[in-house]
């Protein structure tokens, strides 16, 4: 029960050195950023290291930051150590032109659908995923709707038929 954010940060810094950056603790959850080619190494270390023991992938999703040039897409992992009951959040950033990130499906079966969903909505290309196809949207779709360049419909538009759309 002695695992706390400081020990996690120390253990990780000892192993990976200065490549892990942007250490924060918003609302008590340790958050850090890793280079995108390191994501599997970090996940594997967090999984294997007996003192850390982060073996439950709670959640995986992406965020789009159109203003961060070269780092437009962030893939966010939420991990949970169920024994010590500690959660951490860790992010990798990737550019939007070639959004390749290694897939975590070999480590976590649960990442399968979550990565498909992330691909579906943000276009993050998970290298090594066994079946990276769209999951919630139609297969014919040729864009990634959760990116910020697709705004929601203008609420003030008047060219729609009220009877059909009820407004």
């Amino acid at each position: 029960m002695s695992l706390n954010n400081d020990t996690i940060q120390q253990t990780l810094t000892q192993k990976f050195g200065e490549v892990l950056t942007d250490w924060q603790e918003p609302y008590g959850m340790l958050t850090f950023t890793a280079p995108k080619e390191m994501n599997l190494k970090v996940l594997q270390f967090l999984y294997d290291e007996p003192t850390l023991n982060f073996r439950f992938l709670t959640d995986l999703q992406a965020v789009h930051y159109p203003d961060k040039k070269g780092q437009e897409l962030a893939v966010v992992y939420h991990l949970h150590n169920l024994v010590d009951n500690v959660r951490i959040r860790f992010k990798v950033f990737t550019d939007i032109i070639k959004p390749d990130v290694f897939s975590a499906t070999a480590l976590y079966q649960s990442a399968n659908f979550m990565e498909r969903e992330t691909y579906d909505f943000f276009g993050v290309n998970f290298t090594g995923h066994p079946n990276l196809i769209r999951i919630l949207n139609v297969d014919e779709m040729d864009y990634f709707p959760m990116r910020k360049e697709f705004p929601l419909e203008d609420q003030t538009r008047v060219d729609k038929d009220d009877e059909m759309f009820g407004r």
Partner: protein
Amino acid sequence: MNDHILLPEGSIEKQTTTLNLGPTHPATHGVFQNILELDGERILKATSTVGYIHRAFEKLAERRPLYQITPITDRLNYCSSPINNMGWHITCEKLLDVKLPKRVDYLRIIIMELSRISDHLICNSIVGVDSGAYSGFLYLMQFRELIYEIYEEVCGSRLTTNIGRIGGFERNFTNTAFVKLEKFLATYPKQLKEFETLFNRNRIFMERTIGVGAITAERALNYGFTGPNLRAAGVDYDVRVHTPYSSYQDLEFTIPVGKTGDCYDRFLVRNQEMWQSLSLIEQAYKKVQEFKGAESEVFHADSPAYYLPEKKDVYSKMEALIYHFKIVMGETDIPAGELYSSVEGGNGELGFYLISDGGRSPYRLHFRRPCFIYYQAFPELVQGGMLSDAVITMSSLNLIAGELDA
């Protein structure tokens, strides 16, 4: 998708059969599809397809002010919408740093546990229906009606409740609500006991469910199972205990766990959880009754910037009018921050990942839907089993289409 599948040795069939189970098959109880490759009645391979009722909730949430997102959460797991609503309120309250009075916490526990009961009773009675025992369904379903009447008394609606507000409830619980609650507490245990007598040691039911759709604890964790389905496999993970919210730490309850993770254990765990929920409601109700005088009128936190003021104040007080206008027009900026908060939903850990950049609506909101995550284990659970076992596995996992497709 249709790789050629060879028949196993010794099969008397001439070829495999492809069967579309869903999207509108009556046995799926929801809109999702499973393409099953069959050798006679034995399943060789299952492929799941979801997304038939995708409604773009995460995109919608990026334009709405916080309080307008609550009705969206209703439509995730519509069998227990109040838990989703409360989970969302709790997330917002953490972000906005709103402290709730104890009475509100206990009232919320009553509502959340009622909806856990209504969730589990549907799931368990449907397991009964799918294994051929229809009467249990009829026995329990009338009690969901009693629960819905309590919701109705508290918030005015039944299925998609939109119950509560950020900072508390929209109004105090009426006396009728408590009378209805007492009626439920007095009558439900007897019926639940009868339901258990019908099923728990029923030879036919046991034969149909024991060893069907089983999963080991290790696989379940790897597949991201949470909630009753994980506990049936023997892992005592419960958000209410691990990360207490809404004063669950003040109450006494145990986490029922199973052993084998099959349909029978899932059924038993859900039944046991209903008993625990009943005891939680009783404890919380007792604590609510301890508040006397002015304290017994408290039903929301004191946070005028986010909690809609009472209508009579709006007409008579300047400040209330200003806040009313700002809240209704969604003109209150929310603090910047990044937050993951979760509650124990009917099916497991229901998480909200909220990023705010200081604007009026979230920059990004992601729902961790437990159903969506554990549904990917379905092909593995049914492989090698019979077709009728797939149906019963589906209902005992409690797959809710609304939660699959946010």
